[in-house]
């Protein structure tokens, strides 16, 4: 029952045939199946002796640099999704260009692609300006509409008797196979155009991108500059299409530039970094695609740049997530034990420094925490060498458990008294110089005491003219007291 219907439904067969033909994967593998010795392959790749490998590697690097440089402006001007739309909108142009030239003539295809990209951009801005449609739906509409048209046209072309159209699917996912030295010309042209534009218009592009209204008031032609960016973007996308493919070319515009944006804030550095990152992912992706038997080039290059992005996001020393997590954790630990030491000082002070040691329970009372928690905190102090602990039987015959006595070591004492000094000086500074009420200063001082350095403290001391007591009447340990060390006579005798 199926057969007669099958015959009539040609298109269905065509879809099947097409999807078999379009197994881009098959087209995209560059290495031959027979050559399985991957070390030899790797050597063959990295020595660049083979002219075809030279071309492929050069092409991947050029595309990486182009897209990376362009991406700096795409990401900073928030045009990322716009790049995606543009890259899909070029598809019908490629098909129409093919219809006109009747062959895979790169120049005509590129002109067609650029024109259709511009048509898409124009439609988006018309829809945005003259209807109530929002930018995102306008972009989605143009993206999917142009894409559908492109697919229809390409399918239509495939059925025409004219042969040699099979290369058209490689524009969907890209391939390195067909890359010849002629294809490098548009890439070089695009690169030089981008570099010339960026050098000549550096200031103008920067200004109009980051502060368009100011640029307009200075008299810069903001719209023309924006148009410039669009043209460059379109060239960049169209020249990279053959290797990366329509679907993923926008990724190369976004990812290297986003990675560079994590590393630095200066535009010139972002451009340099993202160019380098793009080239790096281009060459590595090209290598992996060359090594793998059936890895399509475009997705592999994109995955490489994603991996670079993740590496930078998590491990970059300055702002990476893991390093800053460790930094935050370490700072939290330091603040915790500095607070414990400070509490020790306060306990000692409340017993007017009568002895060097104090019971652990007093500390627990002071900090309002359970014995177990205090036990742990003291444990940390002991491990770091800031305190020691002895068991003291309070009374020989008593049935109470023996009491744990804690005493600070000289280094622990130094930190504790420094914290107290910072705290009380800051409280005094706020009440004297910033006219805070004395009962409002504690919380502020609680935070700042861990942060202000020796230099600031000295400065505050000088401004306040070497004060002796804080707003609550407690003595402020001076630098001399700290230098003299543990329970020096003046401190005990005087206070």
């Amino acid at each position: 029952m199926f057969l007669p219907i099958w015959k009539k439904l040609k298109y269905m067969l065509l879809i099947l045939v097409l999807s078999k033909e379009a197994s881009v994967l098959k087209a995209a593998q560059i290495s031959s199946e027979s050559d399985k010795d991957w070390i030899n392959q790797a050597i063959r790749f990295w020595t660049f002796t083979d002219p075809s490998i030279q071309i492929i590697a050069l092409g991947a690097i050029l595309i990486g640099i182009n897209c990376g440089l362009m991406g700096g402006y795409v990401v900073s001007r928030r045009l990322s999704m716009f790049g995606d739309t543009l890259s899909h909108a070029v598809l019908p142009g490629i098909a129409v260009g093919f219809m006109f030239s009747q062959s895979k003539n790169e120049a005509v295809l590129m002109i067609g692609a650029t024109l259709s990209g511009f048509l898409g951009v124009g439609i988006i801005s018309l829809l945005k300006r003259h209807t109530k449609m929002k930018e995102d739906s306008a972009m989605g509409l143009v993206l999917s509409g142009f894409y559908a048209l492109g697919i229809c046209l390409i399918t239509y072309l495939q059925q025409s008797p004219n042969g040699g159209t099979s290369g058209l699917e490689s524009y969907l996912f890209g391939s390195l196979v067909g890359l010849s030295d002629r294809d490098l010309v548009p890439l070089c042209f695009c690169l030089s155009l981008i570099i010339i534009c960026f050098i000549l218009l550096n200031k103008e592009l920067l200004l109009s991108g980051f502060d368009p209204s100011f640029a307009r008031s200075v008299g810069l032609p903001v719209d023309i500059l924006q148009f410039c960016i669009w043209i460059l973007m379109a060239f960049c996308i169209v020249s990279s299409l053959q290797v990366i493919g329509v679907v993923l070319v926008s990724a190369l515009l976004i990812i290297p530039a986003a990675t560079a944006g994590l590393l630095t804030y200066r535009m010139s550095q972002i451009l340099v970094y993202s160019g380098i990152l793009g080239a790096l992912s281009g060459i590595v992706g090209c290598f992996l695609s060359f090594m793998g038997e059936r890895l399509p080039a475009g997705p592999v290059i994109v995955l490489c740049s994603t991996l670079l992005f993740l590496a930078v996001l998590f491990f970059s020393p300055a702002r990476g997530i893991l390093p800053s997590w460790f930094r935050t954790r370490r700072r939290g630990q330091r603040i915790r034990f500095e607070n414990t030491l400070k509490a020790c000082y306060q306990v000692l002070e409340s017993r007017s420094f009568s002895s060097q040691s104090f019971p652990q329970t007093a500390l627990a009372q002071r900090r309002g925490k359970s014995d177990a928690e205090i036990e742990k905190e003291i444990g940390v102090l002991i491990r770091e060498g800031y305190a020691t602990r002895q068991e003291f039987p309070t009374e020989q015959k008593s049935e109470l458990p023996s009491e744990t006595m804690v005493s600070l070591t000289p280094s622990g004492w130094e930190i504790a008294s420094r914290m107290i000094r910072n705290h009380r000086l800051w409280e005094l500074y706020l009440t004297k110089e910033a006219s805070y009420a004395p009962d409002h200063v504690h919380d502020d001082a609680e935070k700042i005491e861990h942060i202000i350095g020796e230099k600031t403290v000295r400065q505050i001391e000088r401004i306040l003219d070497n004060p002796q007591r804080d707003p609550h009447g407690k003595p402020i340990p001076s630098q001399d007291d700290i230098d003299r060390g543990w329970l020096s006579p003046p401190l005990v005798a005087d206070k």
Partner: protein
Amino acid sequence: MLDFAEALLDPWSTREQVIWNLQIVFMGMMVSLSCGLVGCFVVVRRMALLGDAVSHGVLPGIVTAYLITDSLSIGPVWIGACLAGLGCGASIEWLRTKTPLREDAAMGLTFTSFFALGIVLLSLEAGATHLDPACFLYGEIGLTPLSPKLELWGLPSGNQALWNMGVVCLTTMISVIVFYRFLLVTSFDCSLARSLGMPVIWIQYGLMLLLALVVVASFESVGVILVLAMMILPPVSSAFLFHRLPSILMCCLPLSIFYSVAGLQLAYSMNFPISASMALAGIVIFLPCCLLGPNGGVLTNSKKLKTRKSSRDLSAN
């Protein structure tokens, strides 16, 4: 003229063809109806491109599910796709809030990476003949009638693909009807919704889940990118015709019937892929809506705008 009529009737000449094509039309209608219903809320919330992102992002989930279970059965594939879609959405949200990246860059970065991962996984698996990357791009709605036939009480009752899509379509309709009030308020006025005590975040997540469900169910028929067309075209076209959301939602039904029928006819006469022709049919109906629509169409609107402008000038003077 006669040729045109013949071309129109060509797909419907024999009984077998009518049965075959009705299945395709019905499938296309259900796909575009469920996409359109979800799309209305997505467009209103200005998340249209998020639909695109999620539809690309489900690919690695589908491929992983296929590689693990070694079959394209609907259950594991849906679970994998929903997980991947949610992962994609979550990582966009995380990148947007926790890193210096802006929303558009976060979105563009995430979905392209997910898609690339899916393609690479797919090509690493040598025997993945059932899963063709081209299938993800165009879809294979034309093969709907080939899916296994089902029998209910001895009677032939449609096939597997139709039933699957039907369940999804029904789920979408029921969820939209049941949660209509919540979806409406959270779409237009988040702070009002919050003050009414609605779980705004959970409604957002629920909508994303529904989106993932619809995208996964539709990708096999219309492909990753044309899902976006099916999602955006109905609300955007009908928004030029009607002002109120219920009417816009209702309008999705006639639009989806038109898309599937016109798409099939176009595909027959020009030998286009059906899914792409459905999107083209959508564009064809969008143009007159946009130009002549009573509610903000370009040509009907320009006069109004002029009068409004002149009256504003007068009042300013």
